[in-house]
């Protein structure tokens, strides 16, 4: 079963992710802070990381992303940025994101499709 770590500080949104992805038989590991997320990644070795940019604590998504790409054990993990900060696409790719989705502009189908693609790729 494929593992997905989702780093998102909003617990409601985490719930939504859980509900959306569970039917597809993915094991979802939620993390509400960057620190927790990094810990989860190093302990679970997920097949995909889904990451938001705005996080309420000091480390923002791009910094977390850079940290992932710096760490030997994590740097090859596919990272999908899903955020409502639509203007950050270029910055995200530059920081090492595998792909970027502007959340409000993305339909559920497209999101699922992207996740599948990244897990099978």
């Amino acid at each position, binding site marked *: 079963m494929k593992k997905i770590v989702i780093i998102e500080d909003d617990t*409601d949104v985490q719930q939504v992710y859980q509900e959306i992805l569970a039917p597809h038989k993915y094991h979802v590991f939620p993390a509400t802070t960057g620190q927790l997320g990094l810990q989860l990644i190093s302990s679970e070795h997920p097949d995909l990381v889904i990451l938001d940019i705005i996080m309420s604590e000091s480390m923002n998504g791009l910094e977390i992303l850079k940290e992932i790409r710096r760490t030997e054990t994590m740097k090859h993990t596919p990272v999908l940025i899903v955020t*409502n900060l639509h*203007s950050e696409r270029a910055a995200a790719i530059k920081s090492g994101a595998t792909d970027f989705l502007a*959340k*409000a502009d993305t*339909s559920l189908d497209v999101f699922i499709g992207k996740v599948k693609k990244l897990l099978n790729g």
Partner: protein
Amino acid sequence: MKIDELTWKNGSALALLTLFYIVVGKFALTFASINASASPVWPTTGLAIAALLILGQRIWPAVLIGAFFVNLTTAGNVLTSIVIAIGNTLEGLVAMWLILRYTEFSNLFDSPIYVTKYVVFAGLIATALSATIGTTTLVLSTLAPWGSFGIIWLTWWLGDMGGALVVAPVILLWWTNHTVYPIYDTRWLAFFLYCALLFVSGFVVFYDIMPYPYVAMPALLWAAFEFGQRETAFGVLYITILAVFATINGHGPFIVTPHNMNHSLLLLQLFVCILSAMKLIVAAAVAQQKKIKKQLLNRERYFRALIEKSSDAIALIDVSATILYASPSTTKILGFTPQEIIGLPGLSLVSPEDVKGTLSTLQSIQKHTGATAVREVRVKRKDGTIIWVEFTVQNLLNDPAVGAVVVNYRDITDRKEAEANKDDFFTITTHQLRTPLSTIRWQLESMLSDTHTLPKRIQVKLQRIYASDLRMISQVNELLETSRVVRGKVVYEPVKMEGISAIVNHIDEFKSSAQKKAIVLTMETPKLKRVPLFIDPKLLSGVIQNILSNAIKYTASGGTITTAIHKEGKNLRVTITDTGIGIPKNEQHRLFSKFFRASNGSRYSSDGTGLGLFIAKSYITRWGGTLTIESPTLKTGGGTNVHFTIPL
């Protein structure tokens, strides 16, 4: 300069002048040796000229009456006296007229040209007139022998000339400038030295110690430089008086052997005239130079103050961007003193990330003299902090007055901060608005994909909510984009791309939404297969999206939308025509304003912010194209034709 009417009306002033004239005249005549009526220096000529210039030509009667009395009481009869008096009066008047006509009286002694004219008009011409009239009268009335005509004329002429060149300037200069130095002023010391020098050199020359007349000159020359016209003229007068006294009494360099007083006096007169003419001209040249220097100095001070007190800093750089000059405000903005950065390469102060952009800005103004450009960059202060600065550069390399590139710059850190805050505000607000909207979207999409478990009426309601949610998302996007357009923050990143396929793809994306509304969307097959464009794909897509979504929104079911792409000269033209509700002619000029929705449009569909065309127009303008919209009258069923161009 004329005294006002009041003084003129005061007859006693006139009488006083007449009296003065007579006294001076009689006194001068005591030196007359050739002929009782001709003296070596005739001061009343100078008096008359000065009086006429100062008081105006109305006072000529004083000259006439005065001269008449002087002559009558010396020699000759009433007739000769009258004629000679007329000659003297005419002399004064002619001098006055010529001077007022051909010079500026207020500037007379400060301009070498005017002073030379004075010498010619007053010193040579007017005096010749008086000498001619006077000598002729004397000879005709047998008061003088014919044979002496020449010598009498010459003496008369030179005597009057002396009066004009020695006496008149002193009066005129004191009249125009009667400031006296304050008691404690150090200039008194120089003045006393001058007087001492005059006295000594005069004594030395005219009391036979060193009988070389030019020994008197250095003191006068020094006066011209140190003091000015007034003191120089005074010196000339002094030397003249001394010379006349000395010569009459048999002393001085003009005394010849064998003794011949006539000859001596002639030499004296020549000396006086030449000396005074020369000194007037030299002093005038010096005065003019001083005046020009002062003007230049004031001008320089004025502009220097403007530059140095300006709160914007100014710097001059050369072709290689080396700093040639930095104004004092540099310290306030950059922390460096001007001296510390002169000679440094200007780019060394620019933050590394902005160096490339700065260089390209500098290059952009290279070609044309006078070309300017503006840029915002980060610079490093002396203390290492980075600040935002907005600079304007102007290429004045080929301007002979400047010969450099002028850089004007100011600290805009505060402004940048405010902008960043605004940016942050918009970004965060948009993000906050989008978060719940995106949650709603996915939840609804999830529910709606599960059609079997939901009763139809619930499905319908969910569809409506979903449609509203999508609309809100699109409105939030439009609002953010509008704010960016208005603040000039649209990021434009053009890339080389193939135009036809991109445009066709964007149009294709709308096929399904057109189908849902039973609108036929057709694309005229473009005759061109591949067209290279240099454009930002995001903006292109945005424009097409906007136009097509409008077309679909405002066209009823069963309508058609046709699109076409043509090459038109140096542009690519894209046309989208619909059979929709059109736009009323009287509202078409407002189409591109923010929030404008045509009246028929708002009635037809409540959905719309009125921002789409505003954004589309600004994008199209950004890439250098044009946007035109034609709407035939509503009567013919309407329809709208939208064209936009892309430069190739």
